[in-house]
């Protein structure tokens, strides 16, 4: 067992493993711990979105853009095999307000360097032939991409191990060792591990990890359901969603919000989302939500009414009150770094977030200013 790692990373989801990849590439010895196995939490419940389309111009959009390119670099570097595909996104607007909002969004996004193309009528239906005839206004985002997140994470983990990294599954952190104001390691059900740097990449559990260290991070779960169809001939060619989705993502409402998100995958299944609600870790399936998702999807693509549904599942997005990820050193505990709270965008934002954190730890300048993601933004709210 590796007793002298340079860095301990708590969490073997896409964020933890991407961070391990960045740090081990830079030559650090990493030890990854997870209470489950690789990519067994929120990562396994995601659709694998790598999106630039669903973000307003903001630091998060800059992060998304860099991350998107980084995914394709990683794909090259580790030999692919995780269904990465620049499938492109199509956003449609159904109401007058939706159309106005979408046009404003694309115009602003273009100024931030996003390839956002306004399209209508025939052009829209050429991209998505089965789209409902009543939908005539949309936007096309060729940069939007998708991967299979669990395989991606598992394959990056393999590369981390090839860099000398170590992974121990089934390891629950029971306390964080803090000496004065410095972190010294972690205590787990499998014993004590020491390192001068500990990274909290525990997803929906990141708040508890911060608390174990005597610090504060307001990360809460935001539940979502996904419907998965039986394998079907290709009917949907892009990630297609309603413009309301952008508003729902940014909303802080606790009650249920749904908007249609439909996409085909390389394996032939069609994924249908998306719902957002804050109900803690309630694992029950709410059939009324599944029904709404089915209806909304059929409104976009009437042909889907005939498609068989094979599975439905739920996942919990790690959500911070301002919807931004938390990337940086803890304001109270030196050596404790956070990379968490990516909500529903964790797959897409993972490589960029990992690069930002890795650069900060190594004291290097990075591709963007990370102030907006700093954990210090919560310290006042959390002061007891």
């Amino acid at each position, binding site marked *: 067992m590796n007793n002298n790692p340079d860095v301990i990373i708590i969490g073997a989801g896409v964020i933890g493993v991407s961070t391990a990849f960045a740090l081990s590439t830079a030559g650090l010895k990493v030890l990854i711990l997870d209470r489950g*196995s690789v990519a*067994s939490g929120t990562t396994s419940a995601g659709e694998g979105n790598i999106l630039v389309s669903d973000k307003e111009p903001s630091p998060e959009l800059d992060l998304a853009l860099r991350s998107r390119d980084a995914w394709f670099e990683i794909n090259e570097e580790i030999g692919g095999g995780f269904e990465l595909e620049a499938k492109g996104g199509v956003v449609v607007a159904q109401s007058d307000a939706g159309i106005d909002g979408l046009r404003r969004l694309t115009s602003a996004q273009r100024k931030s360097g996003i390839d956002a193309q306004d399209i209508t009528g025939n052009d829209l239906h050429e991209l998505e032939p089965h789209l409902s005839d009543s939908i005539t206004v949309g936007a096309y985002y060729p940069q939007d991409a998708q991967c299979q997140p669990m*395989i991606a994470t598992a394959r990056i983990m393999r590369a981390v191990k090839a860099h000398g990294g170590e992974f121990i599954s089934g390891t629950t952190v029971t306390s964080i060792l803090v000496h004065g104001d410095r972190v010294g390691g972690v205590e787990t059900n499998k014993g004590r591990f020491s390192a001068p740097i500990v990274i909290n990449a525990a997803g929906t559990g990141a708040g508890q990890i911060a608390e174990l260290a005597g610090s504060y991070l307001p990360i809460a779960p935001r539940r979502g359901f996904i419907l998965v169809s039986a394998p079907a001939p290709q009917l949907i060619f892009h990630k297609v969603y309603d413009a309301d989705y952008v508003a729902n993502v940014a909303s802080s409402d606790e009650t249920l919000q749904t908007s249609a998100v439909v996409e085909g995958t390389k394996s032939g299944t069609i994924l249908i989302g998306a719902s957002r609600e804050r109900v803690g870790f309630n694992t029950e399936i709410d059939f009324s939500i599944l*029904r709404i998702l089915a209806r909304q999807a059929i409104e976009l693509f009437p042909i889907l009414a005939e498609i*068989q549904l094979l599975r439905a599942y739920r996942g919990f997005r790690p959500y911070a009150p301002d919807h931004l990820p938390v990337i940086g050193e803890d304001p109270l505990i030196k050596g404790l770094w956070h990379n968490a709270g990516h909500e529903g965008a964790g797959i897409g934002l993972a490589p960029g977030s990992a690069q930002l954190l890795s650069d900060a730890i190594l004291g290097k300048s990075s591709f963007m200013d990370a102030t907006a993601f700093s954990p210090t933004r919560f310290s006042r709210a959390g002061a007891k």
Partner: protein
Amino acid sequence: MIISHQIIVIGGGPAGLNAAKYAANAGADVGLIDSGLRLGGQYWRHTGNAEVDESMHHNFDQGSLLMDAVNANPRIEVYLESQIWSASVINNMIILRTKDQTFQTQRLIIATGAYDRSLPFPGWDIPGVMTAGAAQALLKGNGVIAGQSVVVAGTGPFLLPVAAGISSHGGNVVGVLEAAKRLSWAPKISVLIQNPSKILEGIGYIKSLRKSKVEMRFGQAVVAAHADEDGLLESVTVANIDKDFHVKSTYLLKCDVAAISWGFTPDTSLAGSLGLKQGVRNDGSVIIEVDKDQRCTHSHSEVEIYAAGESTGVGGSDLALAEGAIAGLATAHSEKSSSQLRKLRHRAQKFADVLLQVYPVAAGWKSWLTPQTLICRCEEVTYQKVREACEELNARSARDVKFMTRCGMGMCQGRICTRNVSDLFDSEDHDRILATYRPIITPITLGELAQEGLL
């Protein structure tokens, strides 16, 4: 509209039929739901043509009497061709949904039975390779013999009626290959002779096979199948195997159908959806755990859930009938004593346990696999991919394998491959995969889900 019954029984095989009968006779109002076209389950599967059915079955009288009793009982409403796609507990009510209807009850009996256990081997996806249960269903439910030259293989007493049925209806059974040794049951003779009817039944099949000059071979298994140029089954590789199922020698056998059964896998899918406690039996099968009254363990207050028959552990029709009766009485809160039924259940359970010991499936079947052998038929996931997930990608459970390879994500929802994937992990300290919460138990269309009226 929601259909309500005091008690709902799911499954119209021996356990479910008896459960419905006993519960109704105790005064309860019972709904009996089955996915099939006719009652009877797999065991009493029939064509509906009395003459044909008599000739196909051992013991059909008992079945037709019970089915008639259920059909004639005014307290029992039977719902056929009703496949449940979701089961959940909402507001202290068990809600069951089929394509056309929603049912509710506070007392449920699960009697969903079992299906053939299949082991993967090279070529098991070739048309012509099927389960012994499929051959039996063709014969008993359709009056059709599966092929012109049929190999019946695997292990267990079920091979006998399948082979005898095919040969006595004009099919050419080119071999019955039993993996167990010839006298494997000899050490258990004392339990066997307490069940003389079973011995007589077995002797009847063996006589029938002898009459048709069908050869029974022991310690042999089908370990590979080969297709002709049209992609159809042409021959199988038969191996002499040792007690661990490792291959000692092989020979080729021509056939157009290989009907293979490695015992049965309990259907526990509803247990996953309703959050019932599951257990693992000695043979590695996942079962619904029940107490002495056939009652399940779960966290829902206000509702009672029972299970009977093969879904609580495979044991044959006598055990299923006894369990069904006990569950029926308990669910109806009957005062009637079930001590006689408990004795019957105990004896049948002992017999079932012995059968598992006499006809084991040893781990050596894994040595039959090649890297290209499919583990998951639906998603065409090879053994090589499963191994890669375990050895290189840090998969630590069948669930991890599923997400990394799509093994078990296909149309059958893992019903065929999950048990085998669990076995491929056997050497390590991994949990067996239990039936998990699946909101969608069998596929429905999005249009059906979108309908009004579903809760």
